[in-house]
């Protein structure tokens, strides 16, 4: 082994260690940042942790209750996890307030996710009414805030159960999103549904049916989700 090779290996080894160190720091910094935000904002900090499996569910405000129903009807759980339930294609939403997500940030994330992250694959829910979005935000913030909470800030006079029907997608679409995240996301990053047309998705998903392979039911569910959200 020549001395040049030895030096090169040392340099590359150091670079690798730095990379791994960077990854570790990134992981720690995420937790540290959350802790720091918690420390800066003691109100949500006391209630930041989502309820554990054995604890009583928090009492939500009326708006948050409507948001909870809308969250389910829209199929958000297909991609997002809340308190251990839901998909993994998107981030866990159990503790949005604890992460320092403001109402404005969450509203933008629902209306047009690309304003917060240009690379996100989350489809825009721009067809929702202002009340719908406010209810969803109340629900997400209420999750973190615990019993009798902050969801009330976004409350409105509309009674529970009157989410806008026009925005509702069938449950099968939500199921398709979950299958998409689970079966396609395990090998590669998911592209935004908007990148293909309905006809193109039909071909692409049939291709994956052959390659993966998917079951016929999975193929139909994934296609329904992608065509509904592109």
């Amino acid at each position, binding site marked *: 082994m020549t001395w040049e090779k030895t030096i090169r290996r040392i340099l590359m080894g150091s670079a690798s260690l730095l990379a791994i160190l960077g990854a570790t720091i990134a992981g720690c910094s995420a937790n540290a940042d959350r802790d720091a935000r918690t420390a800066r904002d003691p109100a949500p900090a006391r209630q930041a942790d989502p309820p554990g499996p054995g604890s009583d569910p928090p009492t939500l405000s009326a708006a948050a209750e409507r948001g909870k129903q809308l969250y389910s009807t829209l199929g958000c759980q297909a991609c997002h996890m809340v308190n251990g339930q839901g998909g993994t294609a998107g981030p866990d939403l159990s503790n949005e307030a604890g992460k320092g997500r403001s109402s404005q940030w969450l509203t933008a994330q629902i209306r047009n996710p690309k304003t917060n992250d240009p*690379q996100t694959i989350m489809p825009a829910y721009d067809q929702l009414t202002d009340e719908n979005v406010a209810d969803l935000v109340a629900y997400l913030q209420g999750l973190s805030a615990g019993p009798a909470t902050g969801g009330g800030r976004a409350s409105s006079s509309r009674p529970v159960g009157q989410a806008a029907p026009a925005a509702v997608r069938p449950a099968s679409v939500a199921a398709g999103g979950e299958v998409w995240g*689970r079966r396609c996301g*395990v090998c590669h990053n998911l592209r935004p549904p908007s990148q293909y047309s309905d006809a193109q998705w039909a*071909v692409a998903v049939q*291709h994956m*049916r*052959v390659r993966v392979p998917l079951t016929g039911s999975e193929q139909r569910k994934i296609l329904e989700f992608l065509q509904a959200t592109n």
Partner: protein
Amino acid sequence: MVIRAWGAQEPNESGYVTRQEYDALRKEVQDLKAKAPAPEAATEPQSGDQRRLDKAVERALAVAEGSGLGDTKPLITGSAAASYMDPEGGASSFGAEFDPMFLWQLNERLFFEGEIELELGESETETSLGAAYLAYLINDYALAGGGKFTVPFTVYHNHLDAPWINRLPTDPLIYSDGGIAPDSDVGVFATGAVPCREALFNYAFYVTNGPTLITDDPGAAGSLDFDNFTDENNNKAVGFRLGWLPVPALEVGYSFQCSRPNPSGFQTVHSKLHGVDLNYLKDIEPIAGRLTVRGAWVWSDLGDATYDPTGALGFGPLRFDNDRNGGYAEVAYRPTRAAERLLQDFEFALRYDRLDISSDAPGGGVDERWIPGVDYWITPRTVLEVAYAFDDREDGQDEDVFVVQLATGF
């Protein structure tokens, strides 16, 4: 004078209307009024801009309707990559590859995939047919096809080798040139998936022309050539893979392939390939990111044979134990929940490669590689990868290499 029956609806030529005609006309006017748009909307004159817009919409609709593709749905997709390689002790060079895939959904059950692989060689563009097969979807749990397809022996080539999916810019040793696992071949296949409670099973069976045993190359005698797509001896390769997903994030699989790869005129040699593979990907809160773990191990058991028995080729007679095995283990971490937005787009990968070939065989020995790399995800399907392969060969002919690759899937 013509006397009409009372109530008849024929035109009245007298210039007057009957009471019945009057009532009928009145009702008709009222109905029309009810159906007519609001007066202000109906009477509002169209502006020049509005008329131009309406015409543009009409033209766009006409073009859209005229360019309809009928029931056959095509899609061009694939991948491309540009790379820079700097091998230790060798000349550095840039490279590029382009692998377009042509997909057709002929109907709900028939599907065609064609793939062309274009890569820069030393002095010309190397072109190969990556895939050209037709598949028929039998039911929800089974499909069958034939043509040139990616052999489902372990999952690497079928799922993970596209440059924008692979976390590192090089293939593991067992899947590289001189490796011990098949890539694509010509034949027929049947595959499908079956759910079972929370788990999912998948299967693939295939019959192909199979690999060819190299017998006349002093540097590679005894190894299998997986890029020879004609059948040398009328014996087909038969294989299968069984996969199991106990939880959505994890898939494990077992593969087997047997064949008689000896060319005509050479003594009979049996080949058996066994492979196991694992693929795991999960977003994990405590580590604030996504963890990917992948691996495979392949055992190649080739029957003993005497190469160049007469010594006419200049390297025989040569006989050796022809068992080969190797695999890889790869771990990658992407801090998707890092506080810094920039860090979320980085991914850190490390792979261990190994290939064991009997030291008595041509090109034999143990080859080990450690490959750390850093990826930067420009978009979900476009990645810049930087890696360094630390190669350690038993014969001392190490091939360390520094690689940078920009890859995209489209």
